[in-house]
């Protein structure tokens, strides 16, 4: 695999290529980075969805999907993500490498063309999207919001984040809210599309063996015809107001959920974030971590108890599923492990095993197309984009002193309990 090649093809538009001949497929994606705002979040989510339903040339979903099917089952998909205080809309296309076609079909260049049409030549008339696609996208986004409620693990974490981030964009759902989604119209979406092309930051990513140079040319031409006026993107590091918020909600469930949010003061724009990543792994990132060993294995309180560090905002989220009657006991057990961590009771074994686990997973990332794509898309806004190997080296060199220096920064901010009704 070659390392990432990056070329600016417009004002805040970048074309990134990772050439790799080990895979039998290629993948290309276009990601738009925007400030996450309550007024526009749903509209952008709808836009991301509607663009993949049809375009001028393939003007119904069935026609578009038939075209993809004939290209050896290529797939087109859309993803809406939250990264710190930003909303990220990604549309990607992937398919078989040209080498494996039965005939002379140039699969990869056809797919690059389709992706370009999806972004720049949508199925619009008289400055609006079609009613048919609009209805489908609206229903899809509302259903997706509901299905996140269906899965209580996802729901409880998003509730905790909401409570922590009441005054920050990071507290807004990645899909926005139902009311604003329902207020959107096919006309408004058209203007949102125009606005997106002008104001978002774009990162185009090409992973595979095929002809990325011609795809680059096509996208460069398209962006040259757009008057670009990109918005400023920034994420503020999370700061607790100093008061611990405790929220309990009740529901008909078999298992209760416990989610706890911690301030760390260290986020992606701080060099020490590698150290914080390691601290979070020592706390609850592996089967030899403090939470797994003590809360699960020694006390048999739960099946899962993990911690995750959100490096853009700089907080740690701990989550677990426990018996309703054990909620307080589990909370105490988790806080006890956090206290061990913050007061510096960390063994060399805990440090070494967390390091080895992290290094192992970084080194494996380059073995899948999606692993490579996701790695770079989540780091592309960093001042310097590290490769997985560079990140592994940085983790390796963290010392115990460096860990102890910032461990005490970790402070409880929010406790969210989703309690089963008796």
């Amino acid at each position, binding site marked *: 695999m070659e390392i990432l090649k990056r070329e600016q093809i417009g004002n805040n538009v970048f074309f990134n290529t990772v050439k790799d001949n080990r895979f039998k497929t290629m993948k290309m994606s276009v990601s738009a980075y925007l400030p996450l705002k309550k007024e526009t979040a749903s509209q952008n989510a709808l836009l991301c969805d509607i663009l993949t339903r049809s375009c001028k040339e393939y003007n119904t979903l069935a026609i578009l*999907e038939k075209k993809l099917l004939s290209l050896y089952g290529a797939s087109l998909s859309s993803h809406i993500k939250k990264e710190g205080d930003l909303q990220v809309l990604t549309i990607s296309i992937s398919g078989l490498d040209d080498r494996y076609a039965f005939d002379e079909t140039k699969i990869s260049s056809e797919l690059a063309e389709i992706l370009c049409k999806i972004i720049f030549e949508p199925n619009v008339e008289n400055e609006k999207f079609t009613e048919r696609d609009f209805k489908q996208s609206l229903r*899809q986004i509302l259903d997706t919001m509901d299905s996140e409620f269906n899965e209580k693990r996802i729901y409880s974490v998003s509730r905790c984040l909401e409570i922590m981030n009441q005054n920050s964009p990071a507290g807004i759902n990645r899909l926005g809210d139902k009311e604003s989604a329902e207020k959107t119209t096919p006309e408004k979406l058209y203007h949102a599309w125009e606005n997106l092309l002008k104001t978002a930051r774009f990162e185009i990513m090409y992973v595979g063996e095929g002809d990325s140079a011609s795809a680059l040319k096509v996208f460069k031409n398209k962006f040259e015809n757009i008057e670009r006026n990109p918005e400023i993107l920034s994420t503020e590091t999370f700061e607790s107001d100093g008061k611990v918020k405790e929220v309990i909600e009740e529901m008909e469930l078999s298992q209760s959920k416990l989610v706890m949010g911690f301030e760390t003061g260290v986020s992606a724009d701080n060099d020490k974030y590698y150290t914080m990543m390691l601290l979070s792994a020592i706390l609850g990132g592996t089967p030899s971590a403090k939470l797994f060993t003590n809360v699960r294995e020694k006390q048999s309180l739960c099946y899962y108890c993990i911690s995750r560090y959100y490096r853009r905002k700089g907080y740690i989220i701990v989550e677990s599923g426990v018996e309703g009657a054990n909620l307080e006991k589990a909370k105490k057990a988790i806080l006890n492990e956090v206290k061990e961590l913050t007061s510096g009771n960390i063994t060399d074994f805990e440090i070494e095993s967390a390091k080895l686990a992290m290094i192992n997973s970084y*080194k494996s990332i380059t073995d899948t197309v999606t692993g490579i794509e996701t790695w770079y898309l989540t780091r592309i806004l960093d001042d310097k984009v590290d490769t997985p190997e560079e990140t592994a080296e940085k983790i390796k060199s963290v010392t115990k002193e460096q860990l102890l220096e910032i461990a005490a920064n970790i402070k409880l901010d929010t406790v969210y309990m989703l309690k089963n009704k008796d």
Partner: protein
Amino acid sequence: MNDIKEIKSVRTGDKYYKVNHKSGLTIYIYPKEKYSSAYAIFGTKYGSINTAFSVDGGERITVPDGIAHYLEHKLFESEDGDAFTKYAKTGASANAYTSFEKTCYLFSCSDNFKANLEILLDFVQSPYFTAETVAKEQGIIGQEIKMYDDSPDWRVMFNLLKCLYHNHPVKIDIAGTVETIAEITAEKLYQVYNTFYNLNNMVLCVTGNITVEEIIEICDKELKENKQHSIVNFFENEPYEIVKPYIEQKLTVSVPLFNFGFKEKVGDRMLTAKENAEIDVLLTMLFSPSSELYSELLDEGLINSSFSYEVFEGPGYFSILFGGESRNPEKAAEKIKAYISKIKSEGLSKEDFEASKRACYGDSLSSLNNIESIANSLINSHFSENEFFEYTDALAKITFEDAEKRLSKILDVNNCALSVVKGE
């Protein structure tokens, strides 16, 4: 003596090695050049459905539901410490899972491969169960079961299986219930371990940046020769007909979910590569987003992009399942049935057949990118007595007539059931 055979795909040039190891174990080795990691999976043909069996013609033994999964948890502990602590010193990412028909232990790593494979082979061959360690797991697995009890996806599927199967144990939750796992003892764990964790009943698949020589060297050292014994699994006779056509459960959900399944005829063996290829092409033609039905269901607001289909097959069970979120699952199921009847009487489209064949072929090659999916496919092929590359070759060869013939044998609209999970 170890017997080593090279198996090559004529189409892609990819190859792997099948080893009949002198210990009794079958080993598949699939090296991937220029990859930076390796993946190993060690599995036994023993899952949640194997609850009644006999060994070497002995008496029939019945064990509690959920014991295969319980054993999977407990096997990580050996007399000299637990496997996770050992892996913690090498940095592998390790896990295990129990399904209906198999239990698998796996790891992936970029360094220390030799040490990791030694740990895997060692702990799976070193059971250590005491009353105390068995009791400790009750709380952990109890919470795992409760997590599944709240999972709408999980519930909607098991409810459907209860509608489709009268007697086959596939209808029982893989982890059992809080009551059945309370019956599990160290003695019972040893009993099933000694029956099913015989190397002749197991398989090892290794993929990634590894060589045949190093795997064989480690296996020669770590594997203890196992005397083959004969295992008979008892499954009560399962009629062709379903149990009941509809089931509904209330859970705290805001968008209802459904699973809609067609119970299929089971033959003497599992589906062949050719039969699998024919069914996959048919399902792609008829139900993928490019199909007439998909657009119709979308336009009427009966499905969303979560709609999916799958072939669900194992020893003694075979069905075709559809699933997704819907505000009107009954109507969606009616539409699917009507569409199947229509296609069966009017015939298939040749053009759709060709495109779907290509799409399935593309999918099958894509799966060769990933060392994890290769290893898991190798294990599945082995337990269903198929050869891994046969499927891709079969896809390239099947004809329109093959697909027509297959369609007439599956998707009986008088033998299907609907399971729904709704909000209160």
